[in-house]
């Protein structure tokens, strides 16, 4: 394995192990999402959701829960000198980007594994949509992971870092959300999952992921310069 790959694997393993041991992000994100569902139940005065309402509630909640995870992504690096270590190591610095983005992706997948069934339990009539929905979730998570890692790595060096990350990230993920909700809305329709323009929206999601993974990977080196 090249040094960069070793670095990637090490950082990723460290992050996942730390999360497993301290459980500081994931339970909070899951709890936040669940409580938000309850708030929506009362806010919308609905006990079941379908179509665009279901899609909107699900994606808005997932997005805001993801922001919680994004905020915490680089805090340990900042506080414990992880950035300096990467700078000193003779490796491709984008390995840090890849590792952190993968970690965030894993957190989001785990979050959704817990939260989406709860959403189905609370609001959906059947679980038929969940399998195709998983595909949408997978692609969307890639996009959030790429952009979230990029923005978070900059926000962590700023004042008011908890504010700056979400502020900049939210407009940035609007196209992602448009595509994700566009694909989910027919899936969650009342009569059963529909696939109107499903392929097109997946293509948009993939394009978004590709572009921002590339951008993140390309500029990350400049972010770590001293």
């Amino acid at each position, binding site marked *: 394995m090249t040094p960069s790959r070793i670095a990637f694997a090490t950082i990723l393993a460290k992050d996942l192990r730390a999360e497993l041991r301290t459980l500081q992000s994931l339970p909070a994100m899951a709890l936040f999402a669940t409580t938000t569902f309850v708030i929506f139940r009362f806010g919308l005065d609905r006990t079941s959701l379908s179509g665009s309402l279901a899609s909107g509630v699900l994606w808005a909640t997932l997005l805001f829960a993801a922001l919680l995870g994004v905020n915490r992504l680089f805090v340990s690096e900042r506080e414990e000198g992880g950035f300096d270590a990467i700078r000193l190591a003779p490796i491709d610095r984008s390995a840090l980007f890849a590792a952190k983005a993968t970690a965030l992706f894993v957190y989001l997948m785990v979050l959704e594994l817990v939260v989406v069934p709860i959403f189905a339990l609370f609001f959906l009539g059947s679980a038929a949509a969940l399998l195709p929905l998983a595909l949408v979730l997978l692609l969307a998570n890639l996009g959030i992971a790429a952009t979230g890692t990029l923005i978070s790595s900059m926000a962590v060096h700023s*004042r008011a870092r908890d504010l*700056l990350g979400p502020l900049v990230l939210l*407009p*940035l993920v609007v196209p992602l959300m448009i595509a994700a909700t566009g694909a989910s809305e027919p899936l969650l329709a009342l009569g059963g999952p529909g696939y109107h323009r499903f392929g097109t929206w997946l293509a*948009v999601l993939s394009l978004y992921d590709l572009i*921002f993974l590339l951008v993140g990977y390309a500029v990350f080196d400049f972010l770590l310069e001293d």
Partner: protein
Amino acid sequence: MYGKGLRPLSIATVVAILAALSLVFFYAPLDADQGFIQKIFYLHVPLAITALIGFVIGGVFAIFHLRSGNRKWDAYSYVAIHMSVIFGVAVLITGSIWAKASWGHWWVWDEPTLVSFLIVFLMYATYYPFRYAIEDPERQGRYASVFAVTAGAFVPLNFMAVRMAQSLVHPRTFGTANGGLPGEMMFTFLVCLAAVALLWVTLVKLELTAKSTSGQLKRLRRALDAPAPGAGASRIAPEVS
């Protein structure tokens, strides 16, 4: 020397704007669908196109900054984005006026280009708090350049996604106005586009000259060992020297 060429540039801009206004109100024919309201487009669309290109130019300058490390590119990038945001305000206001005139509401979600522009505007509006939150000037410049590049990549994606989200094929009046523009309208439109683009370039140059002058003053002050001025210097606008 940033001020060099500013005078001929501004003269050209004045001439272009006068020519454009004359064409709009005395030469261009009245639109069959929209009537007199269509005249707003000669202002709104060139502003929008110029602002969007301005954002892209800001991204290009940002790439130069990242690759060369020369701080002047960061200043150019900032000013380009700054001017495009200001033009963006004009786009949204004129777009809103047009919406009110056409459809009776000050904002409509039916016009995908306007909605996309709103999202792009919101994205670039975060450029200022983002810069302001990063204290170290060198880091601020670098991160701002990364932002400009990321946001530049975001713009086309955003337009595509918003356009696709239109489920109804709404008869967009801008669509009918643009596709198959008669010769006189197209000519007027192009002159307006040139005038607004010249205005953008002139204002960017003006802003850079002002920044440069301010930078020279600081330099002079340092050389003379004079005490620092009372008013606090801007913390987000990069210096030009």
